[in-house]
């Protein structure tokens, strides 16, 4: 009888080990499969939604343009002839901000957050400023961010 119990106990443990090992064996590639790939390196070019580069002269004085860069949605405004690039993603819940030229603010339509021209959060729920990027212009007019 005792021998039977110990055999039963051994088999129970064996089933547990087999299931456990199988689970780990399957889980490893599944976890790897589910973890998103990080974005690739290379030039950080400002483009439209289709990936076409936006040229420096396409953004007129006082206007804004929302496009994409490697850092995600990015908004560029031109003030005093100079381009200024900031992340367009509101730091509150991820909606995209819009440039309101007559108020000199970036406005988030989701929860009415406001940022000043430098991206500093000035009212509403956004907890931190918008990320700012350095702007360089390539010889062919493409806008490069860093």
């Amino acid at each position, binding site marked *: 009888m005792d021998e039977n119990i110990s055999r039963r106990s051994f088999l129970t443990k064996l089933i547990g080990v087999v299931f456990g090992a199988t689970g780990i064996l399957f889980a490893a590639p599944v976890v790897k499969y589910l973890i998103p790939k990080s974005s690739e390196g290379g030039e950080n070019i400002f483009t439209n939604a289709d990936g076409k580069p936006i040229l420096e002269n396409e953004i007129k004085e006082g206007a804004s343009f929302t496009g994409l860069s490697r850092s*995600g*949605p990015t908004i560029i405004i031109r003030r005093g002839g100079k381009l200024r690039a900031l992340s367009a993603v509101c730091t509150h*819940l991820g*909606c995209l901000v819009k440039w309101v030229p007559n108020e000199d603010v970036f406005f*988030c*339509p*989701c929860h009415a957050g406001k940022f000043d021209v430098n991206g500093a959060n000035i009212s509403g729920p956004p907890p931190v400023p918008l990320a700012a990027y350095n702007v360089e212009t390539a010889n062919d007019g493409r806008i490069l961010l860093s």
Partner: protein
Amino acid sequence: MFKKIIDAIDRRIELLDLFRQNLSEYPVPAGLNIWYSMGAVLLALFCLEIITGILLLMNYVPHAKEAFASVGYISGVVPFGWLIRRVHAIGANMFVFVLFLHMLSVLLMGSYKKPREMTWVVGCVIFGVTLTTCLSGYLLPWSQLSYWATTVATNSPGSIPVVGDWMVQFMRGSDLVSQRTLGRFFAMHVSLIPFTLLLLIGAHVFLMRRTGISTPPWSKTDKTIPFYPHFVVEDLKVIYFFLAILFAFVFFYPQISFPPDALVPADPLNTPEHIKPEWYFLANYQLLKLVPNEFLGIIVQGLAAGLIFFLPFIDRNNERAAWKRPIFGPLAVFGILAYIALIIWGHYS
């Protein structure tokens, strides 16, 4: 002939015995009211969602470039596609609404108390999984509304220290809501979640059968009635009442689930004005607006969810009726009213 086949099967696997044990001779308390039929309404709506979901799957394309057009094709070209889509979308809203009613009645009649604690806990998990189902399904039409509502909802965990950003990226499959997010949400919505929900519903019904149906706190009678056909008829009355409401919305007020932003394809570079989540997320949305610190807002919501989840283990008072309890009763009513107020405030803010 038919009877002969049934008898032949029954002689082998004793199916009728199972039917008698679980349906025709299964006694339920005679004093039950319409609130006890909410579970049956939910089961009926769940079946409706599964059937309409399978039909939608036949024409839906889970790709960011084609999803919106495929949904338009279902609504505009496929015969009765508009009906299937409306029933699926509005039915999901009704499912959440009836789930609220079901939980509310259990809460106020104290049916979550011993020995039904596990039934309550599984019910709470069903509620959470239901909201996940709604959220994942909401993105699939790839409209402006679905895109930006998903962006806001998936961004919420970002404020959690250390792991927040990673959680957001893991949910989306990328930094932004993209094709990868659509793929993940589609897989969850059509396979992982329905099976999980089915298992949970099975567990919930199993637990209900093991502990027996509770009676209303005011019920004095020990009389019972057979579940089938007596109580089934009571269930059917309530099921058809809710189906009538569902189809009233489907035919006469479908825009309740399809506001203007739901009719415009997603533009990842343009957030529309006044984007709002579905009504069942409005309280969370409004709370996030009111609490100055987003992480604090998530903590408050987590605490409220935890309180509801662990309620049977926190509230050990033997009195079941909420209206006979001077502290719990007003607290429960205040909580419910505050929740409704946040929904209304969120809607008009």
